[in-house]
């Protein structure tokens, strides 16, 4: 029988290397994708997601089991991503400097670097689909880090409002407001309004 994430985490706290390897294999894809979606940089996503696993190894004993393991781990990961964004923001702004990358009314401080189009999932999808995806990720790039995190946690991980609130350390009402505003912004940017 397959062990639950929570049991594996308890074993990691007892320095069970095999349990740690199993958790890494279970979560590596989701962790990397989540980090990449927030950071939009492959190298940073790799580095930050690995850092999240290192923190997991070091602080597994502090997982109390009150929340699901995934919620606890995503919280760790999302915090690292948001910290990373704060750290790299200054040089992104310098790099964007004179080209006027910031759009009017864009308060997120994002630059062209943040707006790299997401890679296409399937080469057969065609140019139109690819353009649409690029446009969507450009729009996602204009959201504030918190709004972006909420949209990604909702869309990709399909987490409940309560879980997202736990991860972002805010109220459920705040999560709903973030998601509502983010979707309204995306809708407007995509020209559907």
């Amino acid at each position, binding site marked *: 029988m397959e062990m639950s994430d929570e049991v594996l985490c308890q074993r990691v706290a007892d320095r069970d290397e095999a349990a740690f*390897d199993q958790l*890494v*294999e279970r979560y*590596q*894809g989701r962790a*990397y*994708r989540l980090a*990449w*979606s927030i950071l939009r940089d*492959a190298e940073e*996503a*790799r580095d930050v997601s*690995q850092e999240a*696993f*290192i923190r997991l*190894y*070091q602080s597994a004993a502090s997982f109390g089991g009150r929340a699901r393991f995934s919620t606890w781990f995503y919280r760790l990961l999302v915090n690292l991503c948001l910290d990373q964004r704060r750290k790299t923001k200054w040089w992104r702004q310098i790099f964007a400097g004179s080209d006027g990358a910031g759009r009017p009314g864009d308060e997120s401080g994002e630059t062209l670097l943040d707006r790299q189009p*997401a*890679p296409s*999932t399937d080469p057969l999808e065609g140019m139109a689909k690819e353009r*649409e*995806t690029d446009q*969507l*990720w450009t729009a*996602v790039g204009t959201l504030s880090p918190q709004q972006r995190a909420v*949209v*990604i946690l*909702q*869309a*990709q991980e*399909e987490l*409940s*409002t309560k879980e997202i609130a736990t991860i972002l350390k805010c109220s459920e*009402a705040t999560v*709903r*407001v973030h*998601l*509502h505003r983010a*979707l309204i912004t*995306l*809708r407007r940017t*995509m020209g*559907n*309004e």
Partner: protein
Amino acid sequence: MSDMDSRHPETELIAYLKDELPQRSRETVARHLDGCADCRSTLTDFRTLLAGVAATTAPSVAWQRYRAELRQRLESEAGRHRWSWWRRPFPVAVSAGLAAAVLALVVLAPSAWRDERRVVDGLSGFEEAVLGTRLDMLRQYPVVERLDLLEDLDVIRQLDGLEARRES
């Protein structure tokens, strides 16, 4: 349509989308959607947008290499923690030295100060005793007063002689 049903649901639309509304509120939003084309369109757009974000995949990763790198980082982190005290001997030595100095100051300084006071008091007592033995000499003060002027060693010898005769 009641007032409640005619109000455009905003954040409730998100909760409706996520199927997180209580039964009664869910029915209210559903009734509103039946009669409001704008909200129906908004809901459809929200669903499409979330599906678009969900459909995106991150760049591919060589997972074996990813795990090997992770293992390497983990080992170097563990090594750093294990040796962190010994890899920084200078700050540790300085801190320990400072702590010892402060401790010595706190423990020894008051007693040394007391001893010093005792020595000062002792010296003045000693001086008093010496002066006491020289009382006779002080009685010859007019002679003593002029000693440095006269620089007459014979007078001093006489004084010593006087004392010797008194003792005998």
